[in-house]
């Protein structure tokens, strides 16, 4: 097993914390019901499972100090930005409709993320958005969020 010490340690703690949360919530549900397990039984044991596995993970990282690979956290900046852009797009869906929001997302990705020229960005955004519109909205009639201008 290749483990990346520090990250696995933190991951283990997170999983353990999650397990405790699940256990807590599950204890509020009936454990047994007429003839058999109630809704609380499985989540309770899942919680226990999470905590136990997390413990194994954490213990393993403490034992194998020579962690082999380091996770390149420096590289997270770009995906993080992209993800924030994605989330903003989702937020805009109900206000601007799919077509416009998607066009903006494409613009953002090409211009900001990939640092292409503004012309390329507009090109890509327009052609992709058009393609999506033609395929999904026009031909297939897939219901998509509409903006204030009806598309």
């Amino acid at each position: 097993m290749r483990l990346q010490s520090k990250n696995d340690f933190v991951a283990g703690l997170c999983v353990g914390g999650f397990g405790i949360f699940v256990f807590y919530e599950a204890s509020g549900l009936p454990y047994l019901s007429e003839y058999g397990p109630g809704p609380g039984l499985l989540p309770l044991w899942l919680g226990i499972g999470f905590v136990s596995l997390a413990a194994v993970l954490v213990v393993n990282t403490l034992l194998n100090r020579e962690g082999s690979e380091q996770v390149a956290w420096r590289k997270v900046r770009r995906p993080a930005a992209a993800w924030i852009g994605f989330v903003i797009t989702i937020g805009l869906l109900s206000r601007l409709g799919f077509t416009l929001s998607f066009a903006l997302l494409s613009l953002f990705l090409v211009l900001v993320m990939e640092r292409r020229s503004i012309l390329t960005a507009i090109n890509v955004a327009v052609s992709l958005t058009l393609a999506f519109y033609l395929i999904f909205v026009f031909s297939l009639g897939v219901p998509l969020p509409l903006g204030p201008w009806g598309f």
Partner: protein
Amino acid sequence: MEALSDLLLGLSVALTPANLFWCFVGVFLGTIVGVLPGLGSPATIAMLLPLTFRLDPTTAMIMLSGIYYGSKYGGSTTSILLNVPGESASVVTCLDGYQMARQGRAGPALGIAAISSFIAGTVGVLGLMLIAPPVARFAVRFGPPEYFALMCLGLAMVVFLAGKSMIKGLIATLFGIWLAGVGTDIFTAESRFTFGMMELLDGIDFIVVSIGVFAVAEVLVNLESQAGAELFKVPKGLRNLLPSLQDLKDSRFAFVNGSVVGFFIGVLPGAGSTIASFLSYGVEKAFSRHPEKFGTGAVEGVAAPEAANNSETGGALVPLLTLGIPGSATTAMLLAALILWGFRPGPLLIQENPVLFWGLVASMYVGNIMLLILNLPLVPLFAQILRLPYFVLAPAILGISIVGVYSVSQSLFDVWMLGVFGLLGYLMRKLDFPAAPLVLGLVLGDRLEQSLRQALMMSQGHLSILVMRPMSAGLLLLTVVILLMPVAGKIRSWRLKAAEEGI
């Protein structure tokens, strides 16, 4: 043989120009439905239902069924090219298919998917034709204890999907099972982990999770470095765009495995093609001489699940046509259609409507051939998509993900969930947690818990019911064997090492 004369009757019906035309329309639409993530066959059939009233019922049935099994062909396309599962059953195809695409083998992957879909689809129809009634009778004896055992067997597949770290694989699986439990408990109508949010009352949709964890996460990972130009090598030349003879040879067992597993899982009402594809993938890996290659682009890893989800359609039609019990959401729509057209689906349907049944069966053979002819030439075409620079593909994939998720139930909440699971998937990739077990846990978790509780209700709380019934006992035994296999493997390698180091 009676079946032969019936089949000839069926062919005479299937090969009429009208039926051929509508069969083609059906499989063509089905392929599109499959290629596009989120747009599923139940919804499409529902949309087209009013149109079918103008057609002859047999023709309409041929077309709608065409959509059903056609969609299984198309589902692999986006899975392989973009790591976006086109259909829920295509999730497993992402595992090796996408890796093959990254290695420049998108063409062979797509080709193998089409070929194994064809073989399995045909086997499925054969099964429907020849052994439908006895298989159906066997299927109704499959009760909650057997389903529970089957789910355990499926979960044991984690052993084959975990990859490097078993601990992390188990954590992912447990998380998937937990996700499956979010929502309303069917037995007591209590809400679990819904945090008061009404949108969570029905649980979290599988497609949302799988597209988020596979497709969106993949885009985020790829954006780490400014790739810009092509990320995938797409070799030129037709020979490199279709599966080689070696590929076909390697997939021999997968074709059989997938077809058989898929068909029998399809017959069980409620099991589903996702389970079928996971199981056949696991079986394939279990019997493979080089299991380490799975997950890195093994062609059998594409052939097996693709075969399974295609023959599953043949299997799912068995309970529908022989008992009037639909096996999945799509077959439930087909049942509704049959009722609306004035048929009475039930055990006497085949006897009283031989034209419908045999016409349908014959048209399925024809349809599968049409699909093969339709899909294979499209393979080089689709593979060209990968030539697009990544800065075009990235927004396209994200866009498809949004459309796919939104088209399921028009819920913006689902799209937000997509964002959440995309982030989760990315973190899992960074921390080396495998995604496949999570999806597996999600698919199986619901039914696992449900079946166990139903089984215990059947036996008034005695667990012994699970081992007293032959089928469930057998499946549980198989599960234990599979779980012990890595242990056995380790023991064997210790022994070998000891033997080498000793005398």
